[in-house]
């Protein structure tokens, strides 16, 4: 029987990106014992990739900003499918969470009078994103990491979690293995916070790293937690398209915020051709007005390049399909053109967008201060996730909490840029606080030894099959191809039905996956262990997208291209049925309180 090394905590946090670290810090501050388990080394989580900034209505740059405007922007961006309580808390608490980061050592760019500088971003009415050049995520994770290591939390680096343990319906901990030695570990805990991020690796073209296999979603789903809004996968409009090997790597929205424009192969700024009614009032009607907006003119309206991500991604997709794309199947994103408006534009670009300059120079041999970039949509973010209580972040399973990308609710049908980093700290903090409270007021649950042994045996089975089994890498590639082709930016029923059939076949192959070598740092084994999570989330995305027979936010159905008022009043909830199958249902939205309704009306 496989041995487990055993650890015991009050609160176990799974994931050490922004949300996980913030939750762990909060829990540790309340005096409970905290364990953190992460798949990578500490400080390497995907939060480091966040570039543009953290949205908070500090009103440092434009004093007309307030939580009310931020709230209304977030709801509009989410097409009103958001959990309005989360959108309210987020808008109210984000400024405090940003100031907290500064108190822990984060060094944001400054205004002339020495306060935190804020920049424009898509869907935000006023300059709202606190930032550090274009490496805000790195600043944030390092700040949380360097603060966190002195709070007494114990960190288990490079561990994969295989299952959550439950005892009479409530969470009892988690089990998994360390990737370095391949030995099993049991983390017993009174409360568990999931902060495992998204699902980008279910798709072929993605800005996400290998970690983003939807583990948290699958872990929660398997123990009966409800998932929500799984059909809403954000395709970021601007990923690199060339060279092939870096296809999907993110090109920050900050490029457009600083004045970058999108053009097709005919040189036309095609974004001016299609401006949705919801945003007509707020969008510039000339190139000249758009430029003034990016340079801080308070009376100018934003250029159409800064419309919401779902819309920009679809416009790019349309240009490419119509044959007006670039040689490598994207469109042009041009920041170099600002030299016609700004003296010393080269230095300006290098100072404002240092990582972008570096990234293109090194990976594509291209100088963005001189030439346009080629960009196209890339799978970027999961709006959906574990359905949680807006205040406490607890899921439908007692003691199981979720924060950050793995949780659903804040972003509705589409997330605004910059609202992700603020989501991490606002709801990471809440999840940590409420998980600690739960842990204090509940005794430790009992660990089911049989469940533990069954998990370990299943994890080791691929070694017995060896080379006669299926290649785990190949199954992953095939799944990514299928999801990209059949459940991507433009969806239709017949293709999604084919996707479901493919997923069923991949599942059968995954049941016979085989690996070679031993358990020490065996990437083949790790890939095999991630397959189940990828398959669960892929199926959930597909089933939810099939059920929602309308186009809204990130979901675009070719067969149902319009919005449907009835669907505008419902979320889709996915859960495991008693027979083990996946159950998908329509769930009415909670009514919006009158005072929030009034805010939305006022800002329309």
């Amino acid at each position, binding site marked *: 029987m496989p041995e487990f090394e055993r650890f015991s905590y009050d609160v176990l946090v799974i994931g050490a990106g922004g949300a996980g670290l913030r939750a762990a810090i909060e829990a540790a501050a309340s005096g409970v014992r905290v364990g953190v388990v992460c798949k990578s080394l500490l400080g390497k989580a995907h939060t480091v990739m966040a570039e543009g900034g953290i949205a908070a209505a500090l009103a440092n740059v434009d004093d007309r900003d307030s939580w009310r405007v931020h709230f209304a922007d977030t709801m509009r961006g989410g097409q009103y499918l958001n959990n309005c309580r989360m959108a309210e808390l987020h808008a109210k608490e984000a400024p405090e969470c940003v100031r907290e980061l500064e108190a822990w050592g984060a060094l944001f760019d400054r205004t002339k009078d*020495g306060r935190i500088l804020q920049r424009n971003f898509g869907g935000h009415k006023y300059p709202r994103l606190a930032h550090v050049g274009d490496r805000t995520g790195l600043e944030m994770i390092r700040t949380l990491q360097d603060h966190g290591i002195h709070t007494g939390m114990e960190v288990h680096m490079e561990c994969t979690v295989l299952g959550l343990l439950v005892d009479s319906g409530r969470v009892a901990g988690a089990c998994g293995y360390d990737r370095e030695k391949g030995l099993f570990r049991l983390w017993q805990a009174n409360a568990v916070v999931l902060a495992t991020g998204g699902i980008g690796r279910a798709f072929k073209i993605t800005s996400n790293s290998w970690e983003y296999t939807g583990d948290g979603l699958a872990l929660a789903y398997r123990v009966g937690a409800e998932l929500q809004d799984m059909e809403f996968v954000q395709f970021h409009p601007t990923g690199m398209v060339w*060279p092939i090997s870096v296809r999907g790597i993110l090109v920050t929205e900050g490029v457009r915020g600083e004045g970058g424009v999108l053009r097709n192969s005919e040189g036309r700024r095609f974004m001016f051709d299609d401006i949705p009614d919801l945003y007509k009032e707020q969008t510039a009607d000339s190139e000249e007005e758009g430029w003034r907006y990016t340079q801080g003119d308070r009376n100018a309206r934003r250029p159409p390049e800064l419309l919401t991500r779902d819309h920009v991604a679809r416009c790019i997709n349309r240009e490419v399909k119509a044959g007006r794309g670039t040689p490598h199947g994207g469109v042009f994103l041009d920041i170099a053109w600002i030299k016609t408006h700004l003296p010393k534009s080269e230095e300006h670009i290098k100072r404002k967008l240092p990582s972008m300059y570096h990234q293109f120079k090194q990976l594509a041999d291209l100088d963005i201060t001189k030439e346009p970039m080629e960009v196209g949509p890339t799978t970027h973010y999961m709006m959906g996730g574990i359905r949680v209580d807006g205040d406490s972040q607890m899921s439908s399973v007692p003691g199981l909490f979720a924060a950050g990308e793995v949780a659903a609710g804040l972003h509705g049908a589409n997330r605004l840029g910059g609202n992700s980093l603020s989501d991490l700290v606002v709801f990471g903090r809440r999840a940590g606080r409420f998980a600690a409270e739960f842990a204090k007021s509940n005794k430790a649950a009992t660990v089911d030894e049989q469940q533990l042994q069954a998990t370990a045996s299943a994890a080791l089975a691929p070694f017995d099959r060896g080379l006669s089994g299926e290649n785990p890498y190949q199954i992953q590639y095939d799944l990514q191809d299928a999801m990209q082709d059949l459940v991507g930016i433009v969806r239709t029923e017949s293709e999604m039905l084919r996707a479901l059939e493919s997923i069923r076949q991949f599942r059968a192959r995954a049941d016979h996956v085989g690996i070679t070598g031993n358990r020490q740092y065996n*990437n083949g084994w790790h890939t095999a262990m991630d397959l189940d999570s990828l398959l669960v989330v892929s199926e959930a995305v597909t089933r939810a997208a099939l059920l929602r027979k309308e186009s809204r936010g990130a979901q675009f159905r070719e067969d149902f291209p319009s919005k449907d008022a009835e669907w505008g009043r419902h979320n889709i909830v996915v859960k495991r049925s008693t027979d083990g199958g996946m159950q998908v249902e329509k769930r009415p939205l909670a009514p919006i309180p009158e005072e929030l309704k009034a805010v939305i009306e006022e800002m329309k």
Partner: protein
Amino acid sequence: MAGQATFRIWRGDPAGGKFQDYVTPVDEGMVVLDAVHRIQAQQAFDLAVRWNCKAGKCGSCSAEINGMPKLMCMTRLNNLNLDMPVILEPMHTFPVIRDLVTDVSWNFRAKKTIKEFRPRSPDLPDGTWHMQQADVERVQEFRKCIECFLCQDVCHVLREHHKHDEFIGPRLLVHVAALEMHPLDVEDRVSDLRQKHNIGYCNITTCCRKVCPESITITENAIIPLKERVVDQFFDPLKQLFHII
């Protein structure tokens, strides 16, 4: 550039290992990590490699490529001579776990020995501070660090002399510099630098600065100013004179 190339990869564990050759097709625009992934998926399923973002932002895929410490994700094949085998080894300064993966946990333990950030009292009643961009920029250079530990890998004090227990290495000296020069920080780490972190072991060969993928001017901007602070506090002849009097 399409064609094929040979990668001579070190395979082994703490007990020992050897180089093994893999021939794999290569395409235009590929980086070393792409080739390693291709080999892993097609020929060596259990080849151990650590990576994450694949965009030079997380600092996970550090290795020695043809003897040079580099990030595998940022090393393009068209900058290497593919007529010869490309030699891939794990970083030498850290204990090997398997193949290209090393145990870098020492860096995380050593970081904990550095006194944490301690800000002065807020300037304003809402708990915030005023800072000027110029003051912030000086420290932002150090905060670009992605913790790839390539600078630790080439540091002679660690690589040749194995002074891991006495010396924190360039990465963590940069970390101390970021704290010491932070406009808000009021903690004093100068005596620790001398006595606990042994900054004197560094003889400024600048090897660390040369391998930094973020182009942080490690020696000139971080280590030398810290050495100066140590000298000011402990070796100032005037101060010593006053001390004697």
